[in-house]
């Protein structure tokens, strides 16, 4: 059997953004009939490589070959034309147009598209619905189906499964298996190593802008993949040190909190020193619940008590003044992309009118301390948009280390982030709790509950259906409850 032909290959691709080198030299080879994982820690250059392969940005140096031919992409259309279709981390759909209008713009054949949707059980999706009214996971599927409908040779999937349910992810894998049988290939960028082991034939590992290894997942362990990514051996995954101190006073309590049908009579309390986990399948009202808690939206009924005082949050301003702060699920909404790390971190300092007239004299030291505490990579500090995803997430968290808080609401803070940064964030949350903060943590990764939380609530259809001791909760016990099922006795 001869080796399948090379569909996509790069040679010594390099790219810099001003003073920051994102890619030093990357060789990537993707053969026909292969699912190829692209792995690497934060800032290793994965996103940059995807942008170059997708024609979003040109490489500074190096050669790109598609089916042996040297190509040069000036626009994303060039890449599509060469048979490379990309599904980006953020859906590339125009929010104010309907799905059908978006398809029309990309000249997609309707019937192909319908067939694709059927694969995901979405055949009844209303194509006349505005894109911005659809949930994120549906958009990602729409984006994927659109990419497939272009009938490319190579699919680039950037963190596609991060927003999907396990069931949807399984369908994606089934689609990919079928895909490679047709002699086509896919490049998968993911932080979920289980997926890599499960579906990928080859894995190229990037570190510091270079490809440092190409492995066949079938021949290695997850641990070896992680070692290759980090370049050093990693301590075994362990629970972040948990303080054994009993929790203190109740900092945040909600009673019968309701927002139409989305959130229904939710009641709970979090105490100082405690991390309260929240688990739910996609779309069970968790987004709205966090909006209510952070003052971003108002409840239709129910009470919020902070520190024993009843509060009405008319805007995030009110919540922040009470020490209740939010780290939103989508870090993009909490970042100032064109401002420096320092300015981003300092933003909460200027909430009060009295703080407008000057810059606080200790701003620099406070920012510096936070940068060090979170080990934020500041090589690209002049503009936050040039930072890697993990560093951006650290900046979002760091805003509140500078601004100060009592209760921290964290919505899926580790989504799409590499393992090392994840562990740094777990350790940080534990430390903040040990210092007396109350933390509410929603996470889509069930394994995090046991690692970080003290207690865990399960939300199903807007209601809290279960409470478990996080130390004893298992992924299966949580999933069972999250589906609205009683735990087997």
């Amino acid at each position, binding site marked *: 059997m001869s080796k399948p032909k090379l569909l996509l290959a790069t040679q010594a691709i390099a790219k810099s953004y001003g003073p920051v080198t994102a890619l030093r030299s990357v060789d990537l080879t993707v053969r026909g009939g292969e699912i190829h994982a692209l792995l690497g820690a934060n800032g290793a250059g994965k996103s940059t490589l995807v942008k170059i392969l997708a024609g979003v940005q040109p490489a500074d140096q190096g050669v790109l070959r598609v089916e042996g031919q040297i190509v040069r992409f000036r626009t994303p259309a060039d890449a599509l034309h060469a048979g490379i279709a990309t599904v980006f981390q953020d859906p590339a759909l125009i929010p104010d147009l309907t799905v059908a209008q978006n398809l029309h713009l990309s000249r997609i054949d309707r019937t192909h598209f319908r067939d694709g949707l059927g694969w995901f059980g979405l055949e009844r999706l209303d194509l006349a619905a505005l894109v911005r009214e659809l949930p994120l996971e549906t958009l990602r599927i729409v984006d994927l189906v659109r990419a497939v409908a272009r009938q490319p040779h190579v699919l680039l999937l950037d963190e596609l499964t991060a927003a999907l349910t396990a069931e949807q992810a399984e369908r994606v894998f089934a689609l990919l298996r079928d895909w490679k049988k047709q002699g086509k290939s896919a490049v998968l960028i993911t932080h979920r190593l289980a997926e890599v082991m499960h579906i990928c034939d080859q894995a190229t590992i990037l570190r510091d802008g270079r490809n440092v290894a190409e492995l066949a997942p079938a021949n290695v362990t997850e641990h070896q993949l992680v070692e290759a990514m980090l370049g050093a051996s990693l301590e075994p995954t362990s629970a972040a040190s948990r303080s054994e101190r009993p929790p203190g006073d109740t900092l945040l309590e909600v009673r019968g909190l309701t927002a139409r049908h989305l959130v229904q009579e939710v009641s709970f309390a979090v105490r100082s020193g405690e991390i309260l986990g929240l688990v739910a399948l996609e779309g069970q009202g968790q987004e709205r619940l966090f909006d209510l808690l952070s003052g971003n939206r108002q409840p239709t009924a129910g009470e919020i008590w902070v520190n024993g005082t009843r509060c009405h949050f008319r805007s995030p301003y009110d919540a922040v003044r009470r020490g209740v702060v939010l780290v939103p699920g989508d870090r993009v909404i909490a970042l100032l992309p064109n401002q420096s790390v320092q300015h981003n971190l300092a933003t909460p*300092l*200027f909430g009060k009118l009295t703080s407008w007239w000057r810059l606080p004299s200790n701003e620099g030291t406070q920012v510096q301390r936070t940068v060090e505490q979170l080990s934020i990579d500041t090589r690209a500090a002049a503009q936050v948009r040039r930072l890697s995803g993990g560093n951006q997430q650290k900046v979002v968290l760091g805003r509140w280390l500078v601004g100060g808080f009592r209760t921290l609401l964290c919505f899926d803070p580790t989504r799409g982030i590499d393992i090392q940064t994840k562990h740094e964030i777990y350790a940080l949350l534990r430390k903040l709790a040990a210092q007396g903060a109350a933390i509410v943590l929603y996470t889509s990764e069930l394994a995090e509950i046991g690692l970080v939380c003290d207690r865990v609530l399960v939300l199903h259809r807007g209601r809290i259906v279960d409470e478990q001791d996080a130390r004893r909760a298992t992924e299966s016990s949580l999933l069972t409850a999250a589906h609205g099922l009683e735990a087997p006795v």
Partner: protein
Amino acid sequence: MKSSTARKQKNHTRQPQSWLAENPLVSLFVVFLALFLLTGAVQPNFLSINGVRNTLLQAAPLGILAAAQTALMLTGGIDLSVAMIATGAAYVAANQSPNGAGVALLAGTLVGLLIGSVNGVGVALFRVNPLIMTLAMSGILLGLFTAWTQTVLAGSTQMAPFIKLLGGGAWMGSVPYSVLVWGGVTLLVFWLFRRSGWGRLLYAIGDNERAVRLAGVRVWQVRLSAYMLSGMLAAIAGMLLGGRTGAVDLQLAGAFLLPSVAAAVIGGTSIFGGVGGYTGTILGALILSVLNSLLTFLNVGQAIQQMVYGSIVLALAWGYASLMRRSGS
């Protein structure tokens, strides 16, 4: 598909370009200097203390109006009513001039503050698009002042002597007072943009309003105050203009509206907000003033002047945009 030689050539030219992209103000200063010398070549008298003084004198009201525009553009806003605010403030100042220059200046400034507040309430609280809000305001003001010049403001076209001195006179016979006022405004604006929390919020709101809101800031307060500042600066510029011409009419500041936006854009302030600063705007205002002198000296007729002016503004804005694009997005 490009040949490898073409690619190598591209790499050679990359260095100076990227250096310019990292230091856009330097290239802007070079443009200013080139225009200044070119004007001197056309009219040798221009290369003198007098020429410099005239340039600054011309640039002062424009620079102040452009400061207002810059502050708003940083938030992603704009004020198309600056020219009418300036004219209106000058009218009221002229009307109050019999009561003394102090009262006149105060009244004029209050007019700016008031109109700016209305703009601010519309944009910040009622979420009216700033283009629409300020364009409509400009129309309303034109109507109001057209009517009032026949009634309550009838006959008030002469400025108090002190305001005339401010607008057209010079300190010790050499430094125009209006340039000193501009200098004061410049210091204030630099301090606000760089050394105050409010300035940070201007940039932040233009960059991502939601992020600022989530950080516990009441965004409407920042927007409202920015429009108030813009109104006051426009009023100051209007009274300087009125002082320079000595008399006020409805066309007083009209010609400054588009240059005030152009100066900020040429200076690198993004119309979408979050990026820019006042240094670039100052250079933009100086470039536009010299350009004006150059076209006057060339003596080519109004129609040609307008076309050349428009083309150069377009070229500068385009050149700047492509320079910024090269610095990597």
